[in-house]
């Protein structure tokens, strides 16, 4: 196959959007992991619940503008996250990682099957008018929804940088992520911060779901793969480094796009997970150095 620049640019763009998508999903998870030290195996399922929320809101009898719906999904997902934190995470927060992992795996089973019981196994689509509006700058056709994802992802990452470095709450979170015990000693209420972090992670996940599901569909077992890809990104990014996880997500998007496009789709996940497992062996501390914390 001859090299075609247009095709290459298309793959690049696809990789970029896929990466943006993965990193938006990863962001919520890496925040809670970094600040609270909990690996939430039910994170993808929270995304799924947010997706169904979007589905219900779009199919209400009153038609709301999309922006309002996005805001509602963000708020509701943050609320779900808070409920989950209070009921299941809060009581075990001081226990071992093993307890964290198994509890959240249990949560994941509950959420997936509750969704199955309520919504049946049929995937639901949540198209918006934006996902069918296509523009073609420079001859590359792309839907407005996808562009919005790219722009919002960039804004969210920039926002997180500002938040962590320049707000009091952000600085506190950063401090906790770097040294939990010391923070407890100096009187920071780490439990309250944990709750806030969960809410923030939920809000970002809600935003991600509200933007991304219109391009795809939402179904009960979709969370597993999202959780696993996010976890892989977090590990590759250096266990809890927010920026590292974002870069790793972008890398996975690029690998999938280029390997799938030029070699084989059947093996694209094999390759992206293969890279992840290799990184574990060669650099267990992650690809981007071992700076601790946010």
């Amino acid at each position, binding site marked *: *196959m001859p090299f*075609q620049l247009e*095709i290459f640019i*298309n*793959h690049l763009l*696809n*990789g970029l*959007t*896929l990466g943006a*998508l993965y990193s938006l999903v990863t962001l919520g998870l890496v925040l809670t992991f970094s600040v609270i030290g909990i690996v939430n195996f039910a994170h993808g399922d929270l995304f799924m619940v947010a997706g169904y929320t979007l589905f219900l809101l779009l*199919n209400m009898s009153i038609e709301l503008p999309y922006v309002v719906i996005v805001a509602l999904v963000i708020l509701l997902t943050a609320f779900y996250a808070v409920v989950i934190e209070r009921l299941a995470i809060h009581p075990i927060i001081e226990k071992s990682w093993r307890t964290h992992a198994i509890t959240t795996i249990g949560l994941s089973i509950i959420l997936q*099957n509750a969704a*199955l*019981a*309520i*919504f*049946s*196994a*049929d*995937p*639901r*689509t949540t*198209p918006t*008018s934006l*996902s*069918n509006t*296509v523009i*073609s700058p420079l001859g590359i*056709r*792309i*839907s407005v929804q*996808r562009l919005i994802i790219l722009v919002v992802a960039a804004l969210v990452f920039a926002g997180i940088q500002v938040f962590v470095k320049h707000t009091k709450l952000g600085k506190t979170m950063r401090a906790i992520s770097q040294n939990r015990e010391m923070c407890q000693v100096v009187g920071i209420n780490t439990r309250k911060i944990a709750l806030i972090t969960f809410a923030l992670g939920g809000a970002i996940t809600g935003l991600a779901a509200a933007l991304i599901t219109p*391009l*795809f*569909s939402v*179904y009960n*077992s*979709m969370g597993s*793969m999202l959780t696993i890809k996010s976890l892989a990104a977090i590990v590759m990014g250096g266990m809890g480094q927010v920026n590292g996880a974002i870069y790793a997500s972008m890398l996975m998007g690029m690998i*999938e*796009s280029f390997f*799938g*496009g*030029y070699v*084989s*789709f*059947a093996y*694209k*996940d094999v390759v992206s997970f293969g890279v992840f497992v290799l990184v574990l062996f060669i650099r267990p501390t992650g690809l981007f150095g071992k700076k601790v914390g946010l």
Partner: protein
Amino acid sequence: MKKTLKVFVFLVVVMSLALAACAPAATPAPAEPTAAPQTQPTEATKEEMPPTAVPTEAPKDPIKIGLNLPLTGALAFLGEGYKMGIVLAIEELGGAIQGHPIELYDADNKGTPTDSVNAVRQLVDVNQVQVMIGGGASSATLASMPIILEGETPSVDGSSTNPTIYNQIGVGGNPWLFRIGTDDLIMGQGYSDYIADRVKSVSFVGDDNQFGRGAGQVYVPLLPRSGAEVLSEDYFDPGTADYRPALTKIKSTGADAVLIVMTDQSCATFMRQFREVGLTQQVFARGGCTTGLFNENTKDDPKIGEGIIEFSFFMSGSDPDFADRFFKRYNQQVTSHRFAGYYAMYHTVAPAIEAVLADGKELTPANIRDAIAALDVDTAVGKIKFDDHNQAYTKGSLTTNKDGKQVFLDEVELKPIDHTGF
């Protein structure tokens, strides 16, 4: 002390939830249109619908029918679809056949071989059903075949499309399994010729499951033989994939047409992105690209599915009346699995049982098996009549989408085909 109390409270909560789990089945909630009907209709058939037979007679022995279907896991939508069709069929039968009330027994095979063995064991040994309806995953069917043989209970299968099965049933060794759906090889021959008559090259894309992969194994070698080159072959996890990279690749291969083998939901997502990228090739499909559910999922923009040519069996176009009844009952569109479930029950199992009763014989699994083997029923999709490999040759149909609606193009007679080598 406080700890013990907590444990106690927890146990009470779990127990009450266990009880609560029964509740939705016992008291059907007012059906929310989008929610699947699940057990509600089953209950309805059993409790609310009195047998149509003369009420003065003493109740006759029930007919026990087992469902060996994937009800959870990745293929749950298949099992649910089957069940919806079966439940509708039973409702239309009035909940009974000649006064014998119909009882349904579920067994979840999760679409996996191991659980399929468990499921058939349960149906045969515990529920002691007289006949089973199965379908969904070919691997599950293959694993359950020894148990079906050993349990000596007939099973009617709607959509295990793996050609291997053909060689193992009927004279192939297992007289208890019957297929009303044709397999990939039988369908593939006709459709490959049809495609090759129209285009010179094809890009193949499929769901990454038994359905898509199984079709790939047939079409990728058959198409070149019919005269159309296959330029790429790719599979995707149903639902998850961002198809854009694949679409970009298809664009770069420059194939004349795309052959999609996907179920309804993946196809809707795929086609949406297909249009986004601006591809204009002819789209051939096999599976769920012109179904009611597909059109439902793309109703915001009917242009998405416009002009797709699809080859399928059990399509609503071939029995529009049934499609209407189905929509009325569930407020959902029919799919080929929902269709297959209905046909397996209404046009296969029910006539066989009637035949047994008409002959004045006992309703034993063996008698039902013989009756199924002897069936010759005319339906909207052709005769249900089994050959010596227990295969019925229902008709295939060609359909397309026009203005967001399925349009019936043509029927295709399917013929027996040599299965050696599979």
